[in-house]
């Protein structure tokens, strides 16, 4: 029994680790999409953030510099997205696709030219990375049954960014629902004309929301490259930006439900790894691909209105033309 309990706790523990980049990206997408700018470029921004973080960490040996550089890089990409969608009223999806493809190509082309390892960055020593944090007395607490196990295995021992991501969800909730800026972001995503009439700049508001998203994707990329792993590998985001987008939709563009969706998708991933090659009683071996595809399938089913209804912000994707 305690073996099973430990296994469940460890699966949740793994789920928390894989959920972290999803949570950060989903919150990034939330700012952008609540302000009316479709953001399918989470994947590309996270990839670029991961590459820049790993490259800077490899050259300077400083994890903090790497984080800063990654955030600057992803904010620049967000600014580009804003420039296309807000200033030039371009198609949001086209701009997002452009950013994803550019990131995919640039990270490999630059990585190969700079480090000569076929697109990988040199693997990093512990000093240049963000390392897991042990909570106080975690070892001793491990001896206490159940609560101690939860404390040691599930709560303690994660990377600092994991705790930051969880804390950020609360912060995002507070910003979106309890600050003037958040109210305006929500308003501009629903009815930009009204915001404009109130004398508030629609463009500047949207730029700020999109740039905030850039910050968060930068942290997500940093986590992937120099916290969870010890370097950049080509295409290392592997569709997680899209899963985060799915989680955002699944959470109906609200912070706490989106967090729930991220944790659920992370758990699915952790379970898929654990079930690899395992015979489940009554069912037999569950194909890993089936569990991996489940987040996408569930999102499609949700969007089709078969389980609840996901209504996007009303003005999403519509370029705002100021009346003259």
């Amino acid at each position, binding site marked *: 029994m305690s073996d099973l309990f430990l296994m469940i706790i460890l699966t949740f523990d793994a789920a928390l680790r894989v959920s972290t980049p999803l949570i950060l990206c989903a919150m990034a997408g939330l700012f952008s999409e609540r302000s009316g700018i479709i953001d399918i470029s989470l994947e590309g921004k996270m990839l670029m953030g991961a590459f820049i973080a790993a490259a800077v960490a490899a050259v300077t040996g400083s994890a903090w510099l790497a984080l800063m550089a990654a955030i600057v890089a992803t904010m620049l990409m967000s600014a580009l997205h804003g420039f296309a969608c807000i200033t030039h009223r371009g198609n949001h999806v086209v701009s997002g696709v452009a950013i994803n493809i550019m990131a995919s190509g640039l990270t490999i082309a630059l990585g190969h030219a700079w480090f000569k390892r076929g697109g990988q960055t040199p693997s990093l020593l512990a000093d240049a990375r963000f390392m897991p944090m042990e909570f106080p007395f975690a070892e001793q607490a491990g001896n206490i049954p159940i609560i101690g196990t939860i404390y040691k295995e599930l709560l303690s021992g994660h990377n600092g960014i994991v705790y930051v991501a969880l804390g950020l969800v609360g912060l995002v909730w507070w910003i979106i629902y309890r600050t003037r800026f958040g109210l305006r972001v929500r308003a501009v995503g629903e009815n930009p004309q009204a915001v404009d009439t109130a004398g508030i700049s629609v463009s500047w508001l949207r730029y700020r929301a999109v740039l905030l998203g850039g910050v968060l994707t930068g942290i997500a990329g940093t986590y992937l490259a120099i916290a969870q792993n010890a370097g950049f590998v080509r295409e290392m985001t592997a569709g997680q930006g899209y899963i985060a987008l799915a989680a955002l939709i699944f959470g109906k563009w609200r912070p706490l439900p989106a967090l729930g969706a991220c944790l659920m998708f992370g758990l699915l991933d952790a379970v898929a790894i654990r079930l690899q090659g395992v015979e489940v009683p009554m069912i037999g071996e569950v194909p890993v691909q089936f569990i991996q595809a489940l987040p996408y399938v569930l999102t499609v089913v949700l*969007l089709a209105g078969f389980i609840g209804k996901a209504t996007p912000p009303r003005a999403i994707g519509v370029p705002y033309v100021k009346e003259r």
Partner: protein
Amino acid sequence: MSDLLQPLPRWIDVGVIPVLNVSMAMIVSSILLLVVGIEPVEAVTIMLHGAFGYDEGIGYTLYYATNFVFTGLAVAIAFHAGLFNIGGEGQAYIGGLGVGLAMLLLDSSMPAFLLLPIALIMAALFGGAWALIPAYLQAYRGSHIVITTIMFNFIASAIMVYLMVNVLIMPGQQSPQTREFAESAQLPFMHEVFAWFGVNISQSPLNLSIVWAVICCIGLWLFIWRSRWGYETRAVGFNEKAAVYGGINPKRVVLISMCISGALAGFVGFNEISGVHHRLILNFTAGYGFTGIAVSLMGRNHPVGIVLASLLFGMLYQGGAELAFEVPTVTREMVVAIQGFVILFSGALAYMSTPFLTRLYNRWK
């Protein structure tokens, strides 16, 4: 103020702006080349030689271009209906699956003149069906086609990995691939076709599907600009509400245009599976579906433009491979970045220069 300005004439809109946009993408690409340490002029020389300098290179260029014509047309027809089909990659993948399944089942019992049309139809059926589900969900259940087609790319990929690893893998084989099809199920290579007439050209993956790509271009042009359905498609894409008042059913337009779009993307599977690999393998789509977006935007959703853009991207792919071979600091993925720049400047920032050009034109006039 700007209302008083004359709008740009058609020749600037169709002739100057696309060239300007592509030029901007190429300028940024040149900067990238400089960053990775190669002279742009030298790089272009190597790429041009690699793509057009000898007949094997030309073969490869045209082979890539064939795929880009299919996916470019696929994106274009959806654009005409006001839809954005990002799912070309998945539709091509599933289209190839259809070809593979049919050939594995039938290749021992049928002659080539039956098998090859069946392969073509299967590619269209499977690709079209994979696009039909998101189309249905968009038309009747209100879910956004961009999101569903993205999700369907991943679902397609999961299905393929599952089938290839667990079901279709040839026994005793390490990497997931099926057995090779019988000779009768293999679409002839162009170097074989030329050999029938006594002309010798070098071997390349270029095969007869390029003929089909040309037919598709003409067919799509006829469909969009010379058929009633095409008129309805453009009407819905232009203004859905007005189209409804014109007695057009937009739901039907969404279904039809997406089906055609998926079928066109599925033909990549025909080119790759029937024409090149002659067996099912993983990841044969290699990002061609996404390149289709760049091709379509660059070609302004018109078959002629798409052919030109496909040739350019075929050149970039083949020339890029040559460049990566010659220059150690360059990888093939450089082309992917260039593709991104093209989508950015020809797509997202397509009208960046319009206000400036309008002012310039009005002053000059």
